């Protein structure tokens, strides 16, 4: 679910337009109290929700949680299911084929229509999905017991054979999935299969119709989390093989709580409740995702949609306690993404740690966040976003300290402006506009340190190419967003010397050793501790200037919508919504 961010402002605009909820909310009110009571909680505009808020599973109180309600047969319920339609803005998804999904826009729809062995709950806990239970031997052999009642939208039961076929289809070279390696290559034999060198993935075994065994190449704590991604979802072989590459347009058969009942490019996606869902059916009958675009705030106020993010320009009005809209504001901690300025440690002047540290200390992020970005972002002094597994607020970041910055600069190899190489920072885009925050940063470097930095803008596709080839001296305008909730997804992937996406050519043998140890450390406490160590070491070495933890800070949700929870990652959640009245 990686999403590069062209500029911070674009991110916020896009988030406001396209994906109204990528952050956690303050609306946990698990009982079905009258609407007015549940509205009271988020009504305080000034209150910033604490990242560590005690979250209940967020399930309407009268119903058992899905994990427990194993035996409940929805079709046998005498009570009619609740009606209601939930409408929101969305963007045209690049694909709705789970195995090709690699972006949040696609995933946001896919996770509602399809499903896999395990899933993430709205509080990002790993929960059983089609697998009702599993055992792990030696940390590497996972034996999943499938729910006997799980079935596809066409009524066919889901078997272990379906899972084996689906995982192999996701990894098959002809599927050309951009993310199969990322999510599946821990399975024994998967890489050989992906590379077309094997006829099956040897690490996936069908024990019986409802028992599946997956063996990984080493004990990897994050493996189950990876299986929550759509790459590992189950598909109906007949449907996929009979429909060609566009099977999901003509015959979108999944297993999830919703059926894709209509998909019109550039117009709308309509999801309808799957009445035969193997867990408790969804609380709304229909979900309409408007793809035609539009001014989200205007549409929200016009009752055309039930949810929207709040952008910089509407912020003042929405936060005004006298505004009726203010009652519907939800404040959330940032999403699982961090934006940053990257330095190329293999190129002068960024090959000098002191120089990199000096630039870090010279920036007053608090000032930029308050004065320029209206507190829509949270300054970042570490790598892992708040609330993310392995996050700690004890990382000692390189805070604003002009004195120290000047000291470090004078100790560095590049203290003398006469001999210092020309510094160019590259940002992606074509508009000629760069992020406001970056302009202020350059000004701060100039004023505090007398370091002049030029900006160069490069069109997106070219930017990516040069970034991969480590051609940039320094680069900005992008961010990193979590794929799966494990610190490995940030720290190892971005900073290990051998990682293909270590774009800043950052190399540190000590840090590599800690990261490698953490990969397979079975003891969870010790493992997290290793990541804390690694993160502190990385922050000290200053390969980046971490800038912001981003994501929708403020979201508007209509008061008659119950159960919508903001999550810092894409997880299945629309089934929890109910519409009052």
């Amino acid at each position, binding site marked *: 679910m*990686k*999403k*590069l961010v062209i500029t911070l402002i674009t991110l916020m605009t896009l988030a406001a*337009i396209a994906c109204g909820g990528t952050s956690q909310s303050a609306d946990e009110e698990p009982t079905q109290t009258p609407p007015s009571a549940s509205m009271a909680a988020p009504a305080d505009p000034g209150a910033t929700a604490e990242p560590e808020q005690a979250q209940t599973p967020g399930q309407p109180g009268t119903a058992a949680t899905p994990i427990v309600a194993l035996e409940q047969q929805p079709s046998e319920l005498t009570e009619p299911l609740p009606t209601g339609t939930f409408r929101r803005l969305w963007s*045209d998804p*690049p*694909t*709705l*084929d789970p195995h*090709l999904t*690699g*972006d949040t826009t696609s995933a946001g729809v896919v996770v509602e229509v399809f499903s896999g062995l395990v899933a993430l709950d709205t509080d990002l806990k790993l929960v059983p999905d089609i697998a009702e239970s599993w055992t792990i031997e030696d940390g590497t052999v996972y034996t999943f017991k499938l729910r006997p009642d799980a079935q596809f939208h066409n009524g066919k039961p889901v078997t272990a054979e379906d899972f084996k076929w689906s995982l192999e289809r996701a990894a098959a*070279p*002809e*599927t*050309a999935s*951009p*993310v*199969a*390696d*990322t999510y599946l290559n821990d399975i024994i034999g998967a890489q050989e299969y*992906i*590379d*077309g060198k094997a006829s099956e993935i040897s690490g996936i075994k069908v024990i019986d119709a409802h028992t599946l065994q997956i063996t990984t190449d080493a004990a990897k704590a994050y493996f189950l989390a990876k299986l929550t991604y759509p790459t590992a979802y189950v598909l109906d072989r007949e449907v996929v093989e009979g429909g060609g*590459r*566009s*099977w*999901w*347009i003509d015959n979108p058969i999944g297993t999830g709580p919703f059926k894709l009942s209509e998909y*019109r*490019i*550039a117009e709308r996606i309509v999801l309808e409740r799957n009445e035969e869902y193997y867990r408790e059916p969804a609380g709304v009958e229909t979900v309409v995702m408007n*793809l*035609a*675009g*539009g*001014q989200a705030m*205007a*549409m929200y106020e*016009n009752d055309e949609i039930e949810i929207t993010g709040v952008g910089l320009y509407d912020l003042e009005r929405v936060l005004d306690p006298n505004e009726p809209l203010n009652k519907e504001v939800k404040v959330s901690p940032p999403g699982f993404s961090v934006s940053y300025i990257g330095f190329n440690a293999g190129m002068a002047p960024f090959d000098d740690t002191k120089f990199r540290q000096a630039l870090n200390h010279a920036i007053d992020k608090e000032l930029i966040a308050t004065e320029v970005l209206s507190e829509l972002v949270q300054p970042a002094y570490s790598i892992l976003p708040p609330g993310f597994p392995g996050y700690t607020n004890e990382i000692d970041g390189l805070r604003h300290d002009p004195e120290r910055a000047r000291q470090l600069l004078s100790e560095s190899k590049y203290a003398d402006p006469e001999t210092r190489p020309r510094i160019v920072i590259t940002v992606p885009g*074509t508009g000629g506009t760069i992020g406001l925050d970056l302009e202020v940063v350059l000004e701060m470097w100039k004023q505090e340190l007398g370091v002049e930095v030029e900006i160069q803008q490069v*069109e*997106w*596709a*070219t930017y*990516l*190419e040069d*970034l*991969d080839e480590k051609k940039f001296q320094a680069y900005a305008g*992008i961010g*990193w967003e979590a794929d799966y909730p494990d610190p490995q997804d940030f720290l190892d992937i971005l900073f290990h010397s051998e990682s*293909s*996406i270590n*774009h800043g050519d950052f190399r540190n043998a000590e840090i590599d050793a800690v990261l490698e140890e953490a990969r397979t450390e079975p003891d969870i406490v010790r493992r997290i501790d290793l990541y804390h160590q690694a993160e502190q070491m990385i922050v000290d070495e200053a390969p980046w200037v971490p800038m912001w933890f981003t994501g929708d800070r403020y979201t508007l949700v209509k008061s008659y919508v119950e159960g919508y929870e903001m999550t810092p990652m894409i997880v299945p959640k629309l089934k929890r919504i109910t519409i009052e009245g």
Partner: protein
Amino acid sequence: MWVYIVKRLLWLPLLLLAASFITFSLGRFGPGDPVRVMLGNRYDEQTAQRIRHELGLDRPFLAQYGDYIWNFAQGDFGESFRYRGQPVRDLVIRKMWVSAQLAIAAMVISLGVGLPLGFFIAHRQGRWEDPASVTVALVLMSVPVMVSVPALLWTFCLKLHWVPCSGWGGLFDPRILVPAITMGVPGIAGLTRLMRASTLDVLGQDFIRTAHSKGIGQMTVNSRHVFRNALIPIVTILAFSLAGLISGAFITETILGIPGIGRFAVESVFDRDYPVIMAITLIGAGAFVLANLLADVAYAFIDPRIRYQ
């Protein structure tokens, strides 16, 4: 006549072949790589090679081109690189339909204002209304989109609250107002001038004097004889506009969040979505060639003095 049409049509495949070769080469040899865009900042050489292989991007240039043309000739435009699993044909047709609706609305405005205005000022030739109208129309035509869109939004959305500020709902949705005015107003000037000249031309004809001398009322002469005959050159001009129907308007579509083909085309270029770029180029080129032919043929049908050998 038929020989002429067939001759012109025979040129079409040649023109398309030339256009396709140039576009194809530019994509393959220019900077940027669709696989990198697909993988974003998760690029990994091994994965990239695998996807390139599956998409056929690692084959020799001429083999790729030949295959593309072969499939294109059979109506298969391939699969989008950006919208994975989606046939290019469906994507392009859907987006073109959005732009076409917009173009129709814009044309209604151009014609609805331009024709009556041109007709009216032809009757006021030499008086102040004549230069004044033409001047206003020309000034409006010269206003760049980057200025007219914000001005219209400010008026209709922020001040009058008639329409939402952006978005798209089809031909019969009020949100079409701003883009239709933006795109329709510049066309008014040209149509006004054309209609004025054409009306003046008809007014000077013998049959108008004859009609007047027969005692037919001014209104009847205007509607039956002048207006109708003055429309002839307009009809042929409209044939040209047909091609414009599917080419879209990038800036207007982008600023206003309209999912049309103009915006789609530019996004496809940024994302190096070769199959989509190719399809749009070829369909656009074909449409222009056909529209030109249609205009030429229309001349011959409407004006008996024109003959093609």
